[in-house]
């Protein structure tokens, strides 16, 4: 099958050469009649039909590191890639449900082990080359290639075995799993289908890792998303242009996207992004802090500011529970002895004033948290988890039970000392670029002062902070936040599994360090293969309860998703999932001046 298709492609190329020499212009039409697929199977989107043309400018926190979806890890890269690539089955960021994308339909076998996907006919990459099952087979071969270390690889290993892909015909594929997989067709979301005609050669030469750099000519890259690269100016901007071969159309039959250009400006600081938006240089803004949101809301004449409601970001305080062995000094060993006590962590949690965080940091545009799943995640949050009120008395009681006591001082409040007579003092790291989290840490510092703990807040540059947590492990405690990219528990599985790389308090353990971490591992692995939602929910609820009880992370608060857009932008429907405002970029459009005035 594969050989046949390769031959027919080669034949096509030769034919095309002849046609060009003959001066014919309908090259692509000819190619299509050769393949016997004249019909294009476009996906029709409902929703307000827009107006074609214009450009949309947004700012990006940093330059994307790569346009290669196999390698992209950083948020800016992922955001750009999501506008340039497409997946087989897509999770609608607004409804949080799966929708057909490149695959027109799919069937699951009764044992849940086999997925049959049917591709749309007549799809073409942004360079005009046709898409067929071979591209999909190639794509999965690349994602599953161990030597490429693709971040998506882990998700495609089910029951210890990689997912197997078989091509049935040019438009039909069968995926075989070793075990039933709980997420079902969600597994296909965000797996960009790669252009085999461009990438097979570099892949076989082992050079795929170098493909997709921003500075490379745009002809080296093609995707199935609504936009493709037009121009890149290092340190300033990335301009994407409309992909004329995109596979979605609007209710009137117009081929999307509406916009001619999508421009990403590289604006590193959140405040600078606000200024750009305020001055009209950018058209949309997301990831707004509550402070900046209220500044912009006060002067909204030409833009709409929206509180999209609670999102999936959870902020927390965690202690260094790594097994540091001999390399840490006696001081660190003493601190870790406190940190390892569940009651110590519970005492800290009881002393933290979460309501103050919500009102002072988020200006009440957020929710207090006692577990990892935010109230924004309606389907999965365990509503039975207790929300104990702040109680210093309870905190003191817990500390007393551990043998801690308070030593009076000549001046000031009594100081907490451990059973060995050592003063309880430690530092909390925060990212210096995140004013919200630094403020949280400063509030916690004051909360814990009332327990007699001496806490220092140390704002660090983000990269050295991450380096300390994941590499050197030289820190006491840290205030950090994570954003789930999907409501499904599997999106955060690497945070909770003891072997996970983002199991922040003690990452990448060879064996679970504590019985409760072992239980979480077990529960999560069981839910991976459970197929009914009720069963999974029960298992994941238990995970949430264990986390709430053992407090490896002291959950603090979750902010609302705060976004804004100029009033001239149509179809602005922010989602609480990333990318908050650009998830429906193909449907965004600019109204004309008159239309805007009428609205």
């Amino acid at each position: 099958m594969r050989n046949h298709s390769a031959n027919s492609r080669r034949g096509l190329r030769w034919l095309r050469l002849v046609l060009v020499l003959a001066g014919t212009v309908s090259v692509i039409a000819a190619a299509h009649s050769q393949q016997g697929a004249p019909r294009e199977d476009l996906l029709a989107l409902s929703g307000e039909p827009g107006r074609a043309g214009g450009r949309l400018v947004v700012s990006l926190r940093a330059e994307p590191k790569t346009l290669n979806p196999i390698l992209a890890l950083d948020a800016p890269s992922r955001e750009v890639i999501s506008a340039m690539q497409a997946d087989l089955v897509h999770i609608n960021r607004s409804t949080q449900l799966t929708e057909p994308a490149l695959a027109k339909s799919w069937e699951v076998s009764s044992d849940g082990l086999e997925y049959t996907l049917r591709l749309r006919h007549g799809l073409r990459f942004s360079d005009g080359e046709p898409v067929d099952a071979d591209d999909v087979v190639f794509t999965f071969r690349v994602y599953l290639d161990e030597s490429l270390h693709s971040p998506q690889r882990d998700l495609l290993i089910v029951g210890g075995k990689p997912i197997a892909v078989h091509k049935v015909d040019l438009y039909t594929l069968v995926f075989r799993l070793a075990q039933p997989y709980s997420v079902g067709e969600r597994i296909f979301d965000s797996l960009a289908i790669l252009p085999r005609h461009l990438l097979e050669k570099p892949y076989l030469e082992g050079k795929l890792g170098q493909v997709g750099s921003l500075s490379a000519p745009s002809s080296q890259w093609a995707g199935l998303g609504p936009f493709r690269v037009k121009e890149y100016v290092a340190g300033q901007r990335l301009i994407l242009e409309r992909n004329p071969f995109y596979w979605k159309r609007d209710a009137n039959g117009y081929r999307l996207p509406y916009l001619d250009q999508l421009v990403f400006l590289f604006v590193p600081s959140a405040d600078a992004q606000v200024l750009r938006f305020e001055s009209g240089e950018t058209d949309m803004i997301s990831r707004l802090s509550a402070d900046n949101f209220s500044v912009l809301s006060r002067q909204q004449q030409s833009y709409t500011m929206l509180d999209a409601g609670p999102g999936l970001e959870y902020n927390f305080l965690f202690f260094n529970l790594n097994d540091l062995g001999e390399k840490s000094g006696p001081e660190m060993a003493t601190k870790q002895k406190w940190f390892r006590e569940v009651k110590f962590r519970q005492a800290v949690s009881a002393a933290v004033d979460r309501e103050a965080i919500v009102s002072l940091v988020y200006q009440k545009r957020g929710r207090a948290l006692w577990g990892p799943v935010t109230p924004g995640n309606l389907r999965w949050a365990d509503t039975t988890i207790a929300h104990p009120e702040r109680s210093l008395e309870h905190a003191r009681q817990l500390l007393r039970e551990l043998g801690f006591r308070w030593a009076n001082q000549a001046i000031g409040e009594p100081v907490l000392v451990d059973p060995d007579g050592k003063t309880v003092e430690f530092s909390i790291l925060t990212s210096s670029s995140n004013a919200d989290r630094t403020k949280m840490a400063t509030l916690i510092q004051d909360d814990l002062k009332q327990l007699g703990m001496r806490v220092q807040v140390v704002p660090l540059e983000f990269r050295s902070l991450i380096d300390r947590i994941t590499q050197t492990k030289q820190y006491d405690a840290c205030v950090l936040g994570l954003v789930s990219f999907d409501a499904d528990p599997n999106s955060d599985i690497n945070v909770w599994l003891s072997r996970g790389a983002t199991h922040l308090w003690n990452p990448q353990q060879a064996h679970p360090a504590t019985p409760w971490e072992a239980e979480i591992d077990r529960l999560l692995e069981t839910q991976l293969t459970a197929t009914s939602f009720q069963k999974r929910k029960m298992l994941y609820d238990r995970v949430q309860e264990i986390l709430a009880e053992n407090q490896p992370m002291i959950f603090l608060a979750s902010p609302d998703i705060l976004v804004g857009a100029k009033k001239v932008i149509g179809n602005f429907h922010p989602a609480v999932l990333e990318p908050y405002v650009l998830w429906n970029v193909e449907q965004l459009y600019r109204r004309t001046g008159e239309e805007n005035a009428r609205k």
Partner: protein
Amino acid sequence: MTGYRKLDKWLGVLVALHVVIACGGFFAPYDPVEQDREHSYVRPMRLHLVDRQGNIHVRPFFYPLRPSEGSVNQYDEDTGRPISLKFFTSGASYKLLGFLPVRLHLFRADGARIYLLGSDGYGRDQLSRILYGGQVSLLAGLLGAGITLSIGLGIGAVAGYYGGWRDDVLMRLAELFLALPWLYLLFALRAFLPLAVSPLEAFLLIVVVIATVGWARPARLVRGVVLSAKERDFVRAARGFGASDSYLFRRHVLPETSSVLLTQAAILIPQYVLAEMTLSFLGLGVPEPVASWGNLLANLQQYSVLMSYWWMYLPALAVAPFFMGYLGLAAALEERADSLKMGSWSREV
């Protein structure tokens, strides 16, 4: 004679300002790190003498604030409940001049907190923070300038008096220090230190760094003065009579440098206060929650604060009279030095 009057005026102003800061605990109504989480970003509150009924009060009073319904950081005056200020009453304990435990405060209010200069994002009293912050920033300036001038005097005097290879070595060293990019040096130094430094350690670090980096200029000035002083006729005469080096130094050379040193001090102190503020502003100085002028101004790095809460600029205004005082003093000292020089020169002629 006007030079002296000007000098006295500026000195008077500066002494008064420093006394206020040194006794900050007395003038500050609250502990500078105490948080009042119900009252974040309160705008400066008004004091009244006449209430709504038109009655005149002897003691100034204010209306306590309660959060407005449905908004954040907005407050309404509770006009039904005027609260009078009490003067010279005892309140929270503090240490006067850093060691005397005292409870006496200039004013205080019972039942609600008063924010004459507003509150910050944690509900901390800005007036108290400016006063206590001044202690940190001014002390850093004074200590730093003291150390700098001592080093500068020592090195400048040795280089100028003995000359020769000592002069060469010391002055090349001074040039090296002048060329140092001290801000980056401090960044590098901070990276080598342990992650969490206590406020006191951080303070001493700042003082030592700004002081050791700044000695080169005063040293060169002192050297110049010493160089000319040691060739003066009366110094030569004293040496001819067999005076020792140390005697010459004490009696004839050092006094000549006093006016240079004083002028340098008046220039260096505000410069070093500013250095402390810069470092704290960048997060390299005294850590939160300790107040320093730089820490207070660091709030303004946030765009939302800049746009929404104008009273967060007040620390910058508080700094202004100190700088004007020191610059006025420096100008007056220079004037005096010039007039003295003119005088002595005319006498010699």
